[in-house]
């Protein structure tokens, strides 16, 4: 700790920080632009000037940039000193000479860092009377808008996009005061992290296009803490709503998880909530097969009559909350509850749970992953399966650069200097996947192979680290040497990390990853493991348990069950068409609870309108084992209700005594009693009766406007806003806002800080944990002293087959995930289904890139467009999966591939 003296007061600070960081951490206000807590300092904007004095007798002092000056012990500085104040004011005045007269028509207005800083410095009158520079804008795709006139040349955008996120297609062009931030030509921004530009840019140059169509100012947007539903990482988000409609997703800082950034799937995938296929009222199938909207009581009455004979079974869902799954489980009985995932995926998830529970390597949070100084990726194409993790790994490889900088006495926040010093050094990242990944550019080594070969490499590395781990038979000399080399890299690291997961296409790969982590632990390394899971609550569902999907089919076929209740799940994404058809056909009655019409819903007798993540409260468990609560943002006034509440009402209507709770907290208590392993989810967030000074927390900013006019076209009597009984929020601007338990922040705002950078005021230290600790509770930790046995089953080496290919899954960041693909903006980025082939294999089949090929798999033939993937090993084909219009297939699997018959080529 060091002491600095700021305007006559003493503050305890970290000497390794810079003055700006240190002062902001203590709640002092210094204007700034180019510095960003995750990007470091470059000293480009000159806005953060303060006066530094050499000692008590130094009266003159000198102007320094606080972001470029270390917070060394004994530093004396003044923020309020007249010359510093004047300096900062004139800097803003210069930045503003070319600034357009745009605030009223600027999407940044009201949450603009430039507006905030202009006010803070007191620049209120424009003296400059000459012409302004202008630019032409570019089309950057469906996510991000561009209005270059507003740029103040802080360089944050390119520093984030290129240096931090590894993007290539955004850069700075032109010279002197003409610098231009954009692409070399109009076109879609390639990086899957482009949406962060909206929050990173301190002005209105880059704005959220999905919001622009229904633009609303920040002060009019209600918020609620939420959790991303588009992959298993559980990034924290704040969805914003106005007029009962979600209009954007903002990042919600969680120091252990997503920190400052989201991926574009998470940020722009929310569109499904407002989609045309939303189910808003209960539907009842009529005799002629058509579905008619009915009153809730009618639907419940019919449903209750089906429940009374006690022969109902339920299928849960990895995209529904723990609470909804538990309510279904309670309604039908634990032994009649089925996990709604493909059997193979269910086994894979069980393996993941076993690995995380038996240890010895604990799961890494994203922050811990970022701190790793050597990473082995086995089978996982992170940019497509768990995008935010890929961004994390990009930072992990910089550990070596930071270490080198430290040796050279360069502070870690001196961004340009650290990057210069570490230009050629990277911490080891080894990526072994079937196909090329978008992380390969930073990898020390990349290996391509079939899943079994990747697993063998993993097992070999584990054996090389700890000879007690099983050895791999029949390894070539070079493969053994390679494994030993990688083993040495991991052993040389202080905090090695192993990454694998559902994208790897097989349990063997995951077990191999576990062996490596275990071997590292046994040999005394502080190793951690990241295992990705496909959906937002995959791990929660796995922890809850449930019979496999095939058991549900069997029960229906044998007549042990008559009614099938499907919770938020499109079964056609879980198993092949024939078996789902057979299962639904075998059920006498099908009840579907979901928010969006899907194929399964078309087979239902009763369709119940379930709430999405914005119309419900609940808990998801992320791949790390972190239970995180999401809160209701929109209290729907039509038929839409939380799934657990519908299930609860069905239980009451059927006169059942189980599955009956009045509030979410009652349900969570019951869940904790019946499933002690999940009891800790109660601590994920405060209960609904939580109050601060007797007040609920307000979900709308204090200047939420228009409340006596919003409904005036319908009624002038100003109906009381509906109240959510399950959360400690008001549904209006009345209530408390200020420091609160960190899981509850519905938005971030502080006086004078209207932009997202208000966050500084809510952290212990800028860039550190939120006041009161980062939200979420870990429900899986390795048992103390746990040390399970090594996995022993090592697969045989991959052998090509004549006329057959091993089809492995190829995930797409846009398209493979069900819900985001329904969002209009994301749908624009989804490209058609394809089959990746090695060039030589393609030549053998006489197909070129884009040709139609027929894939004969699981008794069906699918016509796909061939994609030449030079990195794919021969004999392996990569099938894009999860895309709309592609059937569900269990992969990896062997299949025949033929050039498509001419009549099918288009």
């Amino acid at each position: 700790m060091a002491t600095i003296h700021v305007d006559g007061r003493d503050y305890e600070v970290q000497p390794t920080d810079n003055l700006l960081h240190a002062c902001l951490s203590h709640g002092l206000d210094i204007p700034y632009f180019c510095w960003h807590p995750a990007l470091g300092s470059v000293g480009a904007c000159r806005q953060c000037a303060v006066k530094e004095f050499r000692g008590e007798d130094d009266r003159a002092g000198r102007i320094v940039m606080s972001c470029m000056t270390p917070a060394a012990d004994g530093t004396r500085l003044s923020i309020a000193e007249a010359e510093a104040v004047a300096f900062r004011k004139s800097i803003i005045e210069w930045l503003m000479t070319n600034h357009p007269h745009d605030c009223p028509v600027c999407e940044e207005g009201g949450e603009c860092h430039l507006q905030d800083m202009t006010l803070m410095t007191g620049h209120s009158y424009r003296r400059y009377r000459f012409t302004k520079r202008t630019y032409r804008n570019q089309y950057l795709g469906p996510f991000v808008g561009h209005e270059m006139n507003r740029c103040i040349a802080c360089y944050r955008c390119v520093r984030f996009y290129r240096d931090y996120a590894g993007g290539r297609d955004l850069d700075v062009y032109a010279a002197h005061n003409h610098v231009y931030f954009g692409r070399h030509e109009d076109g879609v921004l390639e990086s899957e992290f482009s949406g962060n530009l909206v929050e990173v840019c301190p002005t209105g140059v880059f704005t959220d296009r999905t919001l622009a169509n229904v633009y609303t100012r920040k002060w009019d947007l209600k918020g609620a803490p939420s959790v991303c539903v588009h992959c298993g990482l559980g990034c924290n988000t704040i969805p914003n709503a106005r007029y009962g409609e979600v209009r954007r997703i903002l990042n919600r800082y969680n120091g252990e998880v997503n920190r400052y950034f989201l991926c574009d799937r998470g940020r722009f995938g929310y569109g499904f909530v407002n989609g045309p296929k939303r189910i808003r009222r209960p539907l009842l199938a009529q005799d002629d097969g058509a579905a008619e909207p009915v009153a809730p009581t009618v639907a419940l009455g019919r449903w209750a009559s089906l429940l009374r004979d006690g022969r109902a079974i339920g299928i849960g869902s990895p995209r529904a909350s723990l609470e909804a799954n538990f309510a279904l489980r309670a309604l039908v009985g634990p032994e009649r509850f089925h996990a709604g995932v493909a059997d193979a995926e269910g086994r894979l998830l069980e393996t993941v749970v076993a690995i995380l529970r038996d240890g010895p390597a604990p799961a890494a949070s994203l922050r811990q992953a970022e701190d790793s100084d050597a990473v082995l990726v086995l089978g996982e194409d992170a940019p497509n399966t768990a995008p935010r993790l890929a961004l994390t790994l990009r930072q992990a490889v910089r550990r070596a650069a930071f270490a080198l900088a430290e040796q050279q006495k360069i502070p870690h926040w001196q961004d340009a200097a650290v990057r210069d010093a570490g230009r050629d050094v990277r911490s080891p990242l080894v990526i072994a996947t079937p196909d090329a990944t978008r992380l390969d550019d930073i990898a020390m080594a990349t290996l391509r192979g079939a899943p079994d070969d990747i697993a063998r490499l993993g097992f070999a590395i584990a054996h090389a680290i700890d000879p007690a781990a099983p050895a791999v038979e029949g390894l070539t000399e070079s493969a053994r040497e390679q494994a030993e080399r990688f083993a040495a890299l991991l052993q040389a690291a202080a905090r090695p990390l192993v990454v694998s997961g559902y994208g790897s296409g097989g349990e063997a790969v995951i077990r191999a990853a576990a062996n490596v982590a275990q071997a590292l632990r046994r040999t005394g390394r502080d190793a951690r493991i990241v295992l990705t899971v496909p959906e937002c609550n995959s791990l929660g569902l796995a922890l809850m348990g449930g019979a496999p999907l095939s058991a549900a089919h069997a029960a229906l076929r044998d007549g042990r069950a008559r009614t099938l209740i499907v919770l938020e799940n499109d079964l056609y994404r879980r198993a092949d068409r024939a078996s789902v058809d057979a299962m639904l056909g075998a059920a006498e009655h099908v009840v579907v609870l979901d928010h969006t019409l899907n194929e399964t819903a078309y087979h239902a007798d009763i369709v119940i309108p379930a709430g999405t993540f914005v119309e419900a409260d609940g808990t998801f468990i992320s791949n790390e084992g972190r239970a995180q609560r999401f809160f209701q943002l929109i209290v729907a006034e039509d038929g839409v209700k939380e799934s657990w509440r519908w299930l609860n009402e069905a239980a009451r209507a059927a006169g059942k005594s189980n599955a009956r709770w009045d509030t979410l907290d009652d349900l969570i208590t019951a869940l904790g009693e019946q499933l002690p392993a999940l009891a800790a989810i109660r601590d994920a967030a405060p209960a609904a009766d939580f109050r601060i000074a007797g007040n609920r927390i307000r979900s709308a900013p204090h200047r939420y406007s228009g409340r006596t006019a919003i409904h005036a076209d319908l009624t002038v009597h100003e109906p009381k806003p509906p109240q959510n009984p399950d959360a400690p929020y008001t549904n209006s601007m009345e209530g408390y806002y200020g420091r609160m338990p960190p899981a509850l922040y519905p938005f971030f705002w502080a006086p004078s800080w209207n932009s997202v950078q208000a966050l500084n005021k809510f952290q212990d230290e800028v860039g550190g944990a939120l006041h009161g600790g980062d939200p979420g509770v870990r429900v899986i930790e390795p048992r103390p002293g746990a040390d399970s046995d090594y996995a022993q089953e090592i697969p045989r080496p991959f052998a090509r087959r004549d006329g057959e290919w091993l089809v492995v899954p190829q995930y797409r960041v846009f398209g493979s995930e069900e819900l985001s693909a329904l969002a209009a903006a994301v749908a624009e980025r989804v490209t058609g289904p394809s089959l990746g082939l090695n060039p030589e294999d393609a030549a053998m089949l006489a197909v070129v890139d884009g040709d139609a090929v027929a894939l004969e798999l699981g008794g069906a033939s699918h016509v796909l467009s061939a994609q030449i993937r030079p990195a794919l090993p021969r004999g392996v084909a990569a099938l894009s999966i999860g895309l709309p219009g592609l059937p569900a297939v269990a992969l990896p699997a062997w299949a025949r591939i033929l050039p498509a018959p001419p009549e099918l080529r288009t």
Partner: protein
Amino acid sequence: MLSALRTLWLTFLHLFHRRETIRYPEQKPYLAPRYRGRIILSRDPDGEERCVSCYLCAVACPVDCISLQKTAEDGRWYPEFFRINFSRCIFCGYCEEACPTYAIQLTPDFEMSEYERRNLVYEKEDLLISGTGKYPGYSFYRVSGLAIPGKDKGEAEGEEPPVDVKGLLP
């Protein structure tokens, strides 16, 4: 006693003062142009809607009686709907103060009584007039940086032509 007499006397004197009360409604009082009565939305000199749907009037309104939604056409921002609940409005004029485009203006008309409260809810069609109101010359888009049909980048007042990003000349 004395004060009662004085009061009577003063009241008596009022008989000879100039009369302030007028015979409304036959006779109309004079109201200054800046009187704060019924609110209108004006148009710019080109006849286009002035309101750019910036929400500043709505946020300035102390009784929150303005509600609107932005939409856009060819880059120009408009309110998709614009509603004022005059049964709540206190005619403080803050909306006019806040408006960066002179779109929203208070007028010297106060005769808007209704028997039904809901008839005091005015929508954009009821608010929009065809003229410029108090500020005849002002057009926001002539000074803002947004490109709209008929005014490309660099064509607003005081703007240079767009930068050629490939040029390296000083």
